[in-house]
Structure formats: C-alpha cells, structure tokens
C-alpha cells in the first residue's frame, strides 16, 4: 500500500450509513488538512441522509483545490463505515487506491422489511473487487476502547498512517475538537485503530 503524497491533490471518499458518524469524521479530517496548511474542499449531501440512507462525503486537500467533487475512478482512499457501502463505492478508487472498511454490517431498510437480501460473502466480494483492501472490525475495537460510539475514531486511526499528517497534528486537532467528556475514550479508539492498521 502506498501513502498519499503532498505534491498533488488527495481525494478521500467516506461512505457509510446515516447516524454512523461519517459527517463528524469528515469534519475532523478537514480540520486536519487545515492544521497541515492545505487548501481544502469537502462536500456531502444532507437532507434525507440521516434517516438511515447512504451517506457519502468527498474530501479533497492539496496546494490548490477547485472542485468539491471528484468522480468514480479517482479516489486515493475509500474509508467505508459499512461493508455493503464499501462494495457500492469501490469503483470510485484509482487502481492503486486503498480501501479501509469496517466489517460490521448494517441492514438497509429494504433488507429489514424482507424486500431484499444482504449480499452473501461480502468480504470476499470486496477483496475480489479491489487489490488494496483492509477490513477491520471497528465496532469491536471501539468497544474495547470503551464505547461502540467511537467506531469513527477507530477508522480514522486506521486511516492515519496513509495521510501526510503528523502525530502532533492529530493530537492537537482531536484535543481541540472533541468534547472533554469523550476525549480519552476517543483517543484510545484512535490509537487502537492505528495499531490494527499496522497488521
């Protein structure tokens, strides 16, 4: 797996389900890019998204960034909070791009009401669809850190070695942006996520 470089624009796609913390994760990443001195564009679609629908966020940073959107086949990294959403957006990656995803499934409403079936062997299908893939059980790791609600910080931790940000920058931004009551558990979740990504 490669690490993104600082000379060109980095395209980062975040995907998940409404309520999973995708928006907060994109916010933290945009603050990281600000801290590191990059130009930034970040874009997501609100509206009906929080009602359990698919949520997608585009984050771009580099020397000068114009478009808030990039297109399929141009993402350097796809960070997916859910396996079905990983498979849905895997074609957005460049061939050499990296997919990091949470292996815990969330049923769409169509599956919950018996109208559709969740895809079989989803992890195998993801591995077949793309060469550079890392799946982690971010919910289990977050629970180990203290709360399942820190799943998004586990995923950010796993992503962190692939981004051009220093440990000091991460630490400064997380301490500034997270509420004191949830800071320690989130820092632990971030650290455990980072370690999980080294395996």
């Amino acid at each position, binding site marked *: 797996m490669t690490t993104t470089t600082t000379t060109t624009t980095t395209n980062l796609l975040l995907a998940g*389900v*409404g309520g999973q913390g995708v928006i907060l994760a994109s916010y933290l990443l*945009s*603050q990281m890019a*600000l801290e590191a001195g990059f*130009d*930034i*564009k*970040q*874009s*997501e*679609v*609100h*509206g*009906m*998204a*929080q*009602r*359990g*629908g*698919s949520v997608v966020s585009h984050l771009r940073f580099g020397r000068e*960034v*114009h*478009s*808030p*959107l*990039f*297109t*399929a*086949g*141009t993402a350097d990294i796809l960070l997916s909070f859910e396996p*079905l*959403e990983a*498979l*849905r*957006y*895997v*074609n*957005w990656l460049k061939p050499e791009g990296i997919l990091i995803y949470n292996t815990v499934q969330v*049923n*769409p*409403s*169509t*599956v*919950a*009401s*018996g*109208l*559709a*079936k*969740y*895809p079989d062997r989803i992890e195998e*299908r993801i591995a077949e*669809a793309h060469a550079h893939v890392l799946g982690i059980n971010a919910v289990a790791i977050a629970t180990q850190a203290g709360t*399942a609600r820190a799943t998004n910080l586990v995923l950010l931790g796993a992503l962190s070695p692939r981004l051009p940000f220093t440990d000091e920058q991460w630490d400064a931004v997380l301490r500034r942006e997270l509420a004191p009551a949830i800071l320690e558990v989130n820092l632990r979740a971030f650290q455990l996520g980072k370690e999980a990504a080294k395996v």
Partner: protein
Amino acid sequence: MRSVMSGNEAIARGAWEAGVTVATAYPGTPSTEILENVATYPDIYSEWSVNEKVAVEVAIGATEVGARCLSAMKVVGLNVAADPVFNASYVGTPGYVVVVADDPGRYSSQTEQDNRRLGPYAKLPVLEPATSQECKDFVRAGIELSERFGTPVMLRTTTRTSHSKGLVELGGRVEKTDPPALVRQPRYSLLPGLTRTRHQELEERMSRIRAWADESHLNRIEMADAEVGIVACGAAYQFAREAFPRASFLKVGMSYPLPEKLVRDFRAKVRRLYVVEELDPFLEEQIRLMGVQVDGGAELLPRWGELDPYLVATGLARAGVPGANPIFTTQPAAPVQGLPMRPPTLCPGCGHRGVFTVLSRLKVFVAGDIGCYTLGILPPFNALHSDICMGASIGTAHGIEKALGATARDKKNRKVSVIGDSTFFHSGMTGLLNIVWNGGSSVVIILDNRTTAMTGGQETPAMGRTLSGKEAPAVDMEALCRALGVSRVQTVDAYDLAALETSIKAALDADEPAVIIAQAPCVLEYKIKWEPWVIEADACTGCMRCLRVGCTALGVIPAAEVGREKDLVTIDASLCIGCGVCAQMCRFDAIHAPAGKEG
C-alpha cells in the same frame, strides 16, 4: 484568521460582517443551516418565520426602518415567497439580500427549477458564489449593491455551494451608522395608481446596474491558454477549472445582468468560447442575445441533474474541445451491480410508522405532503399516493372529493390527507379553512411530532420556543383547528394502532370535515429511548407480519441458523427505542416490553 466553513455557514458569517440586523427564513434543505448559523450571532435578530412568504414580508418591513436584512429559502421556497419578492423589487428595498438555494440533482427537492430566471423576471440582480469564501464575500457585496441601487439582490447558491466546505478568511463587522427610524416612504405603497412610474424606474435601474457590472469586482477574466475560453459561474466554474486546467476563464460572479463589455473583451481574447453551467442556459442566452458568438454550451452538457468534472470534461471533449484533464475523461470501472439499495427510511420509533401501518391496512387513498412522512410512499407501506407541495395534501384531497361528487363517499373513493405539524402551520391552515367554507368532508391527519423533522429538528409555533431559544407561546393545535371551523377534532396517541384505526374509520364515516392529530414527539429531535422490546423465540411463528411496520430495528435470522423450521424475527436492541408498534402487529404475543414494563 482562516476557518473551514460550509457555504451556508459562510453566508451567515457574511450577514454578520455586512452589518445585517434582521434575518428570516423557513427551514428547507439545502438552505436550513444559514439561519441556524445566523442565530449564533447575537448582533442579528433572527427568526424562523411561519413560511417563506412571511419571512420576506418581515424583512421588507425591516428595510422600511433602514435595517440591513437577509432572508433564506430553498429552491421551491422562492415559489411561496414570489409575491413579496416581486413587490420588494418594485419597492426597491435597500440593504436586502434574498438567498435562494437551488438543488441541481434534486437531492432533497421536488423540482429542479433554475431560479436565476427570477433576475430578469422580477428585475433584480443575481449573484452566484462558487466557494465558501465567495458565499461570505457576496453577502457583503449584495448588501452594498442593494443599498447603492435601491434593489433587493438575489444570492443564488446550489446544494453543492451551500453544503461544500472550504477555507474562509474571516473579517470584521461593518454596521450602519444611522440607527433604525420609521420614516414614511411613498414608494412602499404599491397602489396601482401610485406606481405608474415604478416599472419605468425598474428598467432604468437595471440599465444602471448593467453598466456597473463591467466595473464590478464580482466578475473577472483569468487568462491562460487562449485556445479555449470558458464562461462559467458557481459550482460549474469549479468543475470546469478541474476539467480544463489550461483553459482561460470568464469567471462570472453576477450572473444577471451580465457584464457586456467584459464578455466582448473575453471573446476577443480567446479563439473558441464555451459556456459551462448547470440546468438552464442562463448565461448562454444572455451572451447570444448580445450577438456574441458561442462555440458550444447547453447542447454539450446534460440539461438536468448536477454536473461534475467528468461530465464537463467528457461533454466538451466529445465536441472536440482540446485540453481536457485526462483523469476526468477516462471511463471509470462500472459499479458493482445488483446491490440492495439503502433508501432513507422512517427512524426506529418514529410516530409516523403507526399511522402508515394503519392507512396501509385500510387501503384508503392518501394525499401526502412534504416532510419525513413523504417516506410513507415507499415499501412496505406504499401508503401515500400524491405529494405535490407544502400544504397541498389538504387542497388536493378536497379537489378529489368535489370532482367525484356523489361517488366521493363510495368505499373505493375514500381518502385522507396527511400533513406534518410544521407543514400545517406553513400552508395547511388556509386549505383547512377552505374545506370548512366550501362544505367539504375531508379527513386531515396532522402528524404532530412537535418539530420540523426532515430538515433536522427546527422550532415550530407549537414547540414553545423560537429559533433563538426564547420561550414562546405554544399554539394549541386542537383549538386552532376548531377556530378554523372544524368541530370534529381529536388527538390520538400515534403509537396506538387500535385507537388510530377507530378514529380514522369514524372520521371517514362522518359527513363533516375531521382533523385527527396523531401525536408522538420526534424520537430523533427529542432523543427518545425507552427500553428495547424483546422477541420470545418460542412464540414467534415466523409469519413476518411484524415486518409490515418497516422498522430497521427488526431483522430476520434464517431458520437454518437457529435450528428451527421457520425464520425467526429479531430486534436489534441498539436500534429499538421501545415504541411497541411492532408488538401490536403480532398475533402470537411474541413481542414483549422488557420485564416490568408491559403495556
């Protein structure tokens, strides 16, 4: 100081920096966050008005005493507000910016109209920011333009500019020096006899603005390779910059009226001229009307939906335009086919679920409205059969009844209206009065969740507080409906399926208008979480009747996995909020409240 801001946050900041003292809106995606953020600046009086029309009227009044004002609305909100907006143009309100957030791609709107057309239609200038920085700066520019020429100014964003984030350099606040004063100004009286000269003045005003456009810093030429010149504005400009990195640009910030001299200068500097814009060919038509040659525009790009760098690059490259960025002309890998969709859905515990479960069972025609409950149109309910615009559920049901005449009371022709509490206040009340007046007998179900839920939980007149968090009188909805002339008004617990069914059936049989207020506060906004319910596996026959409530907290375990003959329903305890609606569907008493909380 630099900050990362969405376009909407930046517009709020711009209102503060421009010295705005009054800001009004009705919530509507993608514009909602503008007023939510304005409300965080204590120097500005801000309010959720009952609807967009009232919001604009409040602002017109505020300009009468010299206040700088901003109103914000979504794409279709402008349709509601059009009457006072047109008249504000005739009055010539100074210091007034109307923000309209259009929605190419219809992410959350029923129409894809291009509201830039309001510029020539209502005879007011239109500004179109492309970045968060411009969202902030153009509010200030708009207020200045408005004061300079005595005209309301439209600031038009799209979902992409409103919801994208980028860097913004923050500035200080510039307040008006003279305090507000109520001075009687004849031009605020639009009596036909007195406005004889107003239209003429409007045309002259636009001529002066047109001349000013050529000097304005809002438009600029960015020369690079002279082979290809692109005229663009808003998000389309950003997409085009990425798609054609070496091209020259006329970056338009004021899309109406266009700077004619600048357009001609640019045409003279480039060998080929293209126009890249979303939705209507609004810039292109103006340029062609000038008699300036355009080598390509609307015919090269999709006329509906949102653009992106790929669509711009491939659209122009197909027509032989050189210099497209190869990253954006390569056909990407196709998406994996056959995956289940993940549509938005009613939240676990949502009070609307019970109503749609009952309506689906009664098989009546349901005239719907705009809100979370529009999701009742989707499976498994399929219990919403029309959905037009804010408040229309009531008028359309009345029209159905009157057109059916004597057959309106046949069983197959029975119908109800469903409308949310906020939508009812917005524009349902007048429809209800209309039914009473004209002898209708509609059944109107008000889904009262005590908030404007779809846009993220904004305050309503029944909530007991305002946008700024001040305590306010909470409207008594039953009393309001009675005052409008409906004598059959009943409030029902939205989680009680039997009570709902009894109430709806009785109302359908009655020969008079009826209002049923189905009450359950929004679980998301009020953070409601009771103990999750549980399935008694031995009692569950696997009939799946409970799944008809369409709750994502319910799941199915295949029979083989649990070693039984029939599939087993499960409840995800992390999602279930304990509303008990699914239990009322079970004929085998297999779904229980947690111990000690039965019933």
